[in-house]
């Protein structure tokens, strides 16, 4: 008998960590117990994107969205929704701005403003079932590419679509494919295609989610790429820290081999292609093309100078076409729906020249001081304000927006005054940040920008491979200087020193890691220079984050003497009596912030 209802349980890494496998098992057991096993199917899907609210369960065809589901909730959920057919109110999601729970997916602001191209199958298909992918039109793009298009035609279509590399560089994919194909023909050497799944930015999980929710889309993109470029060998370089993604991709490849979508004579054509998964050890620098290829060959993951490009001499000196996960996953919809459709989304007219704008959509991972942490896909050209306030739901509590850091650790911090800018490759570069692979870290008014710059510089210093001096030593000096400023030991001239050092690191580093590493320093200097000056000249941290520069005190005017902070203080250094203003003993205060957290009346002053 056909199933009447499908219970789509999110099995992306975020939800799995919050216990979705247990929820799915409990659902299956409970459905069986209720005698619904023949009517209701429990499906484990890829990431739904709303990770902050996991584990997530969506009941289809009703489209009812449940959040934070635990195994304990399952009996009632099954009884209420699956047996009696009414939404189980306790688990319905209430957006922060609203009072009444909204049950339907399309009414939740987080989902309503998104446009899904790459993530179109998220939550819809079982990523481990190739038939599910085929059922939603999977591998039809490959059929088209094999039967109706020449390799040159495929490349022309990708070029006209304006698709630019989603890994961060934003290089037009079609141009890269063409160069690689020509290099291979010219040199009579077989090219390779590679998928970069070495996603290493802190707080970024776009590529992981794509592979987890729709691995076949990446595989199909790569097969089409192989046909266009003339490759018979492909690699996916994926980091060791992504076990679920790796496992699902491995299963997808096995299914493809079994069904003749990889190997010899793919779909009865003369195309021969196979893909191997290679695990990286999680070094940030291995996301860089030359370092990645060195690692693929089994050498130490260190970059080399790129006066000779990898499209000509890459993996084992063969012409190598490297695109990231999201870029590959964009290929099947472009081939299916045409370049014109894709170019119609986003900014600029890319039909003649892909550098003229940014077409299509982009996936961002939204993290930091924001209500709706998660994964979103939006059209290029959407404003930062729409992303952060409409989709992201703004800041938690009474905090104010201060900056958003885009592009991963080596991106820049964008201030509130630029919130209405359109997000695309060129605009982000223009304001001193970058697209990167799509991480977005939101910061509120209690974030110290000097401290932020220090954090990212220290991260990059750790991840620098150490091969070239400007990056290895320059980042260390930048980090030490920032550290000094945060500790109140900054001196006049430090800002200029930071600028000179940054300039040297940008210009003299061997690869893009060093070349973009000073971005957090340069952009915070550009937009938040006064904060640096306050640290250096007044020895004050305006955001109240740098412990060496702040003191905690209580405003006697506001303090009602409620004893809350007194009880919360771990050092017992707050004194006072009921209904009398309390006092903090600054000499014993460890500046933990506990008193501020519990105070309901903002009576704790941090300055």
């Amino acid at each position: 008998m056909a199933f009447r209802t499908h219970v789509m349980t999110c099995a992306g890494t975020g939800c799995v960590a919050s216990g979705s496998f247990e929820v799915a098992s409990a659902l299956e057991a409970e459905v069986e117990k209720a005698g619904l096993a023949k009517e209701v199917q429990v499906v484990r899907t890829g990431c739904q994107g709303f990770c902050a609210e996991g584990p997530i369960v969506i009941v289809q065809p009703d489209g009812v969205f449940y959040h934070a589901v635990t195994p304990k909730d399952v009996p009632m959920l099954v009884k209420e929704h699956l047996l009696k057919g009414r939404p189980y109110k306790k688990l319905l999601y209430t957006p922060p701005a609203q009072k009444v729970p909204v049950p339907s997916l399309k009414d939740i602001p987080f989902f309503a403003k998104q446009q899904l191209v790459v993530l179109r199958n998220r939550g819809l298909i079982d990523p481990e079932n190739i038939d599910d992918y085929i059922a939603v039109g999977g591998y039809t793009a490959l059929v088209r590419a094999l039967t109706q298009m020449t390799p040159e035609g495929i490349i022309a279509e990708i070029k006209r679509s304006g698709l630019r590399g989603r890994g961060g560089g934003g290089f037009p994919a079609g141009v890269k494919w063409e160069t690689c194909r020509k290099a291979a023909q010219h040199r009579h050497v077989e090219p390779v295609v590679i998928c970069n799944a070495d996603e290493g930015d802190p707080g970024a999980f776009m590529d992981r989610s794509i592979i987890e929710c729709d691995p076949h889309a990446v595989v199909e993109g790569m097969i089409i790429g192989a046909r266009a470029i003339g490759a018979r060998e492909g690699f996916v370089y994926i980091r060791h820290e992504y076990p679920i993604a790796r496992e699902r991709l491995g299963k997808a490849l096995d299914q493809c081999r079994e069904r003749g979508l990889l190997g010899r004579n793919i779909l009865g054509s003369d195309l021969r292609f196979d893909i191997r998964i290679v695990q990286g050890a999680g070094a940030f620098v291995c996301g860089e093309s030359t370092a990645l290829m060195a690692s693929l060959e089994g050498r130490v993951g260190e970059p080399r100078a790129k006066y000779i490009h990898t499209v000509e001499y890459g993996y084992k000196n063969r012409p190598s076409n490297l695109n990231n996960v999201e870029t590959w996953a964009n290929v099947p919809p472009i081939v299916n729906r045409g370049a014109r459709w894709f170019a119609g989304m986003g900014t600029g007219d890319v039909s003649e020249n892909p550098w003229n704008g940014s077409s299509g959509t982009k996936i961002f991972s939204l993290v930091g001081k924001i209500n709706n942490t998660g994964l979103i896909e939006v059209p290029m050209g959407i404003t930062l304000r729409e992303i952060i306030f409409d989709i992201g739901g703004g800041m938690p509590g009474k905090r104010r927006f201060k900056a958003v850091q885009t592009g991963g650790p080596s991106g820049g911090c964008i201030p509130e005054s630029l919130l209405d800018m359109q997000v695309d490759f060129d605009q982000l570069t223009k304001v001193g940040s970058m697209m990167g692979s799509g991480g977005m870290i939101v910061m509120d008014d209690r974030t110290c920008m000097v401290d932020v710059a220090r954090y990212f510089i220290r991260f990059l210093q750790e991840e620098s491979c150490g091969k070239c001096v400007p990056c290895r030593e320059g980042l260390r000096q930048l980090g030490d200087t920032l550290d000094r400023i945060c500790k109140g030991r900054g001196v006049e001239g430090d800002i200029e020193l930071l600028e000179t050092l940054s300039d040297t690191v940008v210009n003299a580093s061997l690869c893009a890691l060093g070349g973009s590493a000073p971005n957090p320093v340069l952009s915070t200097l550009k937009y938040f220079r006064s904060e640096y000056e306050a640290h250096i000249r007044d020895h004050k941290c305006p955001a109240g984050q740098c412990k060496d520069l702040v003191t905690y005190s209580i405003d006697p005017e506001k303090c009602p003497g409620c004893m809350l902070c007194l009880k919360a203080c771990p050092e017992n250094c707050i004194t006072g009596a009921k209904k009398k203003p309390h006092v903090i003993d600054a000499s014993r205060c460890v500046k933990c912030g506990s008193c501020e957290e519990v105070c309901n009346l903002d009576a704790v002053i941090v300055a």
Partner: protein
Amino acid sequence: MKDEGQRMPKLTIEDLQAIREKRQQVMNLRAGTARAKVTVHMGTCGISSGAREIMSALLHEIEATSTKDVLVATSGCAGLCSREPMITVELRDAPPVKYVDLSPVRMKQIFQDHVVGGNVVTKFALGAGSETTG
């Protein structure tokens, strides 16, 4: 060498199409799009007067006729407990129709005439349209 990897039949372009058609109903269901939707009212009253049998009969009809564009949903009591089992049939671009006092045989007839054929079975129908809310 010729027989290498021949354990499972390799897919052809036609096979892809066949799989897609076969799975169409499942995907319609998950995407929430279909030509018709049949809601079986499964409140306590509905279940006790046989809504489960109505549901089974409906699913059986869908299976037997290989219908791919009909969604099946459940909902609670519609308020008219004395006339259960009850269903609501919604065709796209038409007002919903409520049927009352059902049996599996009547369910089958409604499915064939109304859900598939588009003609309301007036002798079992309670009325068309929705209740006024708000």
